[in-house]
């Protein structure tokens, strides 16, 4: 089956350190066919809905085979091979994702901050991560809930600036912001279901811009 795989520069597995074969040959799990006691025995990949959690420098379309199954937030299989690099996943898109998440964290903060308050007005008037970061830096004397919500927005905004300043760190900033926006949503709505909904929003955003199908 077709799936997606994030790798470090040079087609290297982020945790195994194993280089995926360049010519599309199958990469076999260390103990293909054996009961999965530890993850290092298996090949891992993402469905579209898992992408936000596993971001790294390179994104590839991969083919999986052999006992393919879902394990929480990833796919596991006995073997996999690279099909093609998804070039749309680049530093610019990572920064764009980071920014989209920062705006979501800002939106979540607006539901927590008192309407009409100086903090609410300041954040509501922001259009970019840079503006959000600047606005958050000015906020003071917030009660704890508001401070936390605004804090998430400010943190996410700063990560966008980091992604833009140093493209080599963009994957981490993008991934963190997905995480921050999820936290921000769960906190604002005081509902764990909000975390799942936020992740689903992120998956749709990515699917749309990468030209891939969700739920497939």
């Amino acid at each position: 089956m077709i799936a997606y795989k994030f790798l470090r520069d040079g087609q290297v597995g982020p945790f195994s350190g194993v280089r995926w074969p360049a010519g599309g040959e199958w990469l076999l799990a260390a103990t293909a066919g054996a009961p999965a006691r530890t993850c290092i025995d298996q090949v891992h990949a993402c469905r579209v809905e898992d992408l936000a959690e596993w971001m790294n420098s390179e994104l590839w379309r991969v083919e999986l085979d052999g006992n393919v199954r879902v394990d929480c937030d990833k796919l596991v299989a006995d073997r996999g091979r690279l099909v093609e690099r998804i070039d749309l996943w680049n530093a610019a898109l990572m920064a764009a994702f980071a920014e989209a998440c920062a705006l979501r964290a800002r939106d979540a903060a607006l539901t927590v901050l008192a309407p009409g308050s100086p903090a609410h007005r300041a954040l509501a008037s922001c259009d970019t991560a840079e503006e959000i970061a600047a606005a958050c830096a000015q906020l003071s004397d917030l009660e704890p809930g508001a401070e936390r919500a605004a804090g998430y927005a400010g943190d996410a905004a700063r990560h966008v600036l980091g992604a833009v300043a140093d493209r080599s760190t963009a994957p981490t900033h993008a991934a963190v912001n997905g995480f921050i926006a999820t936290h921000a949503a769960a906190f604002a709505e005081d509902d764990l279901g909000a975390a799942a909904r936020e992740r689903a929003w992120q998956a749709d955003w990515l699917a749309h811009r990468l030209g891939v199908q969700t739920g497939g």
Partner: protein
Amino acid sequence: MQPAAIGAGRSDDEDERALIAALRRGEEAAFVELIDRHGAALVRLARTFIRDRAVAEEVVQETWLAVLNGIDRFEGRSSLKTWVFQILSNRARSRAVRESRSAPFSAFAGDGADDQAAVDADRFRGEQHRWAGHWAAAPSDWSHLPEERLLGRETLALVLEAIRMLPPRQADVIVLRDVEGWQPDEVCAALGITDANQRILLHRARSKVRAALERYLAAEGATR
């Protein structure tokens, strides 16, 4: 020159038994073979307990003599390697205590009461923070350090010193596992501990050595 009786093609166990038998017969070649196999590692091991090279070599020499004097009584319940290590470890420890003016604190530090965290709690955000438990002062990226600083003699010396400051059982585990490259089950057999226990000791030891290395490298950077 290796005598024909001791050579390749035998299992480790058989090999060891043949070596022990030859030693008991008083064959010098067997003793030379034993030193070939373990001599360098023993000196390295002794140096992790004892700073002074000459004293460390003395302790190794005493160890070899104790091995010879005990070879008739050695029952083979543990491997020769394990037995030799235990002799060295005991002698090196007592000698290290005698050599210093006052006993180093670490010689008496038990492990049971040692519930230090791997990293100081103040390196992380407090419980009230929105990122409770996350890094407040994150570790830096050592890949930016020049290789000669990270892998140089001074750094290795610092690491050795950090090992000497560890509580005894933590030092044993980290030296056998990470310096000497013994397998976990060999270490458990040598020290008479469970695998879980071995991992806990290894965890504490590695955490302390990493922390010492971090302090050293950070201080180095600050003076540049």
